[in-house]
């Protein structure tokens, strides 16, 4: 083995990876720029946008309902013994409501949606790319960014807060069911106790960040799908990387959002 050859190979590999990295960053910024331009263009694709809202919002409701309910139920069952040790079982509804609304609801719902919606967008757009449907659309005088990408990103951005609210409500409902396994508390009492601990400062920042989560899911799925390579393998690759990168970005955005919120509390 020639150490000099090894060194050159490593350097070439590093150079190539660095170049690819910066090339991708440039691609992302160009893509964002085009999306912003097309979002505010005159020929907004309303029909496709409402169709995507239906696909992303309505069709995700059952999954979110199950996840939200189980989230509340499990959180209650797990927290109750600890609170009982401190004689603070009465704090259970408030604690569950605050943790669901502030953090658990938005993040868990966003991660579930990254799996369902992000992979769906990534797979759909990449398969359209591989089968030349995007090219066909461009030749039909339809701007594919405006028709396919802008509508999906906006639909994801607007539907995710709705899905999070739905998950939060069902989470609290699940929590009430969990509380009734080893206790007896009325629905109205549980809800009034839960919401007596929730203020605007809990609700508003959490609600705002759900828009960001939706935008992240829509953008990552669209970017990965639209920039897929040739061949069917790239469809799986686009779907897979959409989920992984959207999930990672959701966690990072959440961390930043929590830090910003903390500065105002």
């Amino acid at each position, binding site marked *: 083995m020639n150490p000099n050859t090894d060194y050159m190979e490593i350097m070439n590999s590093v150079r190539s990876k660095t170049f690819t990295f910066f090339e991708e960053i440039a691609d992302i910024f160009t893509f964002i720029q085009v999306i912003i331009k097309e979002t505010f263009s005159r020929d907004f694709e309303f029909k496709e946008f409402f169709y995507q809202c239906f696909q992303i919002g309505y069709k995700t409701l059952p999954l979110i309902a199950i996840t939200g309910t189980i989230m509340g139920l499990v959180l209650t069952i797990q927290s109750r013994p600890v609170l009982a040790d401190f004689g603070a079982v009465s704090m259970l509804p408030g604690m569950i409501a605050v943790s669901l609304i502030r953090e658990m609801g938005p993040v868990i719902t966003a991660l579930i949606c990254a799996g369902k919606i992000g992979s769906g967008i990534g797979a*759909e757009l990449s*398969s*359209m790319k591989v*089968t*030349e*449907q995007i*090219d*066909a*659309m*461009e*030749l*039909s*005088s*339809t701007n594919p960014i405006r028709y396919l990408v802008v509508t999906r990103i906006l639909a994801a951005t607007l539907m995710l807060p709705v899905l999070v609210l739905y998950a939060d409500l069902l989470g609290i409902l699940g929590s009430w069911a969990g509380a009734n396994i080893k206790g007896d508390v009325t629905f109205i009492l549980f809800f009034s106790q839960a919401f007596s601990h929730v203020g605007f400062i809990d609700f508003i920042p959490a609600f705002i960040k759900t828009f960001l989560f939706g935008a992240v899911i829509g953008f990552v799925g669209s970017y990965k799908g639209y920039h897929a390579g040739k061949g069917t393998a790239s469809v799986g690759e686009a779907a897979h990387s959409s989920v992984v990168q959207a999930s990672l970005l959701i966690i990072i955005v959440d961390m930043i959002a929590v830090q910003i919120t903390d500065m105002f509390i």
Partner: protein
Amino acid sequence: MEEVPINHMKTKPHNRKVVIEIKLLKKSFGDQEVLKEISLDLYDGENLVILGKSGSGKSVLIKCIVGLLNADSGIIRILGQNIPDLQSKELSLIREKIGFLFQSGALYDSMTVRENLEFPLRKKKDIFTKEQVDKKVLEALNHVGLTDELDKMPAQLSGGMRKRVSLARTIVTNPLIMLYDEPTTGLDPVTSEEISMLINDVQKKYKTSSIIITHDIKCALLTADRIIMLKDGEIYKEGAPENFENSSDAYAKSFFK
């Protein structure tokens, strides 16, 4: 001068106007030079077949023509307008005059046959009423013999039917120029012949000028008024189909044996 009937027009029809003019077109991907200074003309009413092995640059050429790929240098003039110089709006207008049949058909999976055919007309709502759009869709489907499949999804159709629907979608806008990218790839010989005959029918009925990219010799012979053979990104040979059939050139013979 006596007008040469289109189907017997086996040489360069210099008495007709040029609809597509390509001069010194170059296109590379990285270090790989795919098109090396290609120059060719497509005449009005002509079926020009571009023949070549896989990887010879045929599909890249046709995609450069419609602006789906940007050429590195050269001139691509369609109906007098140089494609690389056009802004997106002007490019859209010129594209409305071109029908492009993709190798894969490129039907929109999430739409029915009807919606696929209506799609190219959606931007012309101010020109066509709903009834006119319906009539155009039915006419185009009737032309390819698939009026019964109107409400089916592409996944419910066979390969040949998908290709026909795709052809119907390209002719629904009454294009002046048709570009066919490997129209018979993946089809059985009988269906391939049917598609080749449909290409001729489209030329007759819609008076189109066409470029047909293929490596299917039967399709080339059935449809071509003139053949250009590409080899390694360069024009290797050009002439009437019978010139290729009787050629003593080893490379040309390898296609026609």
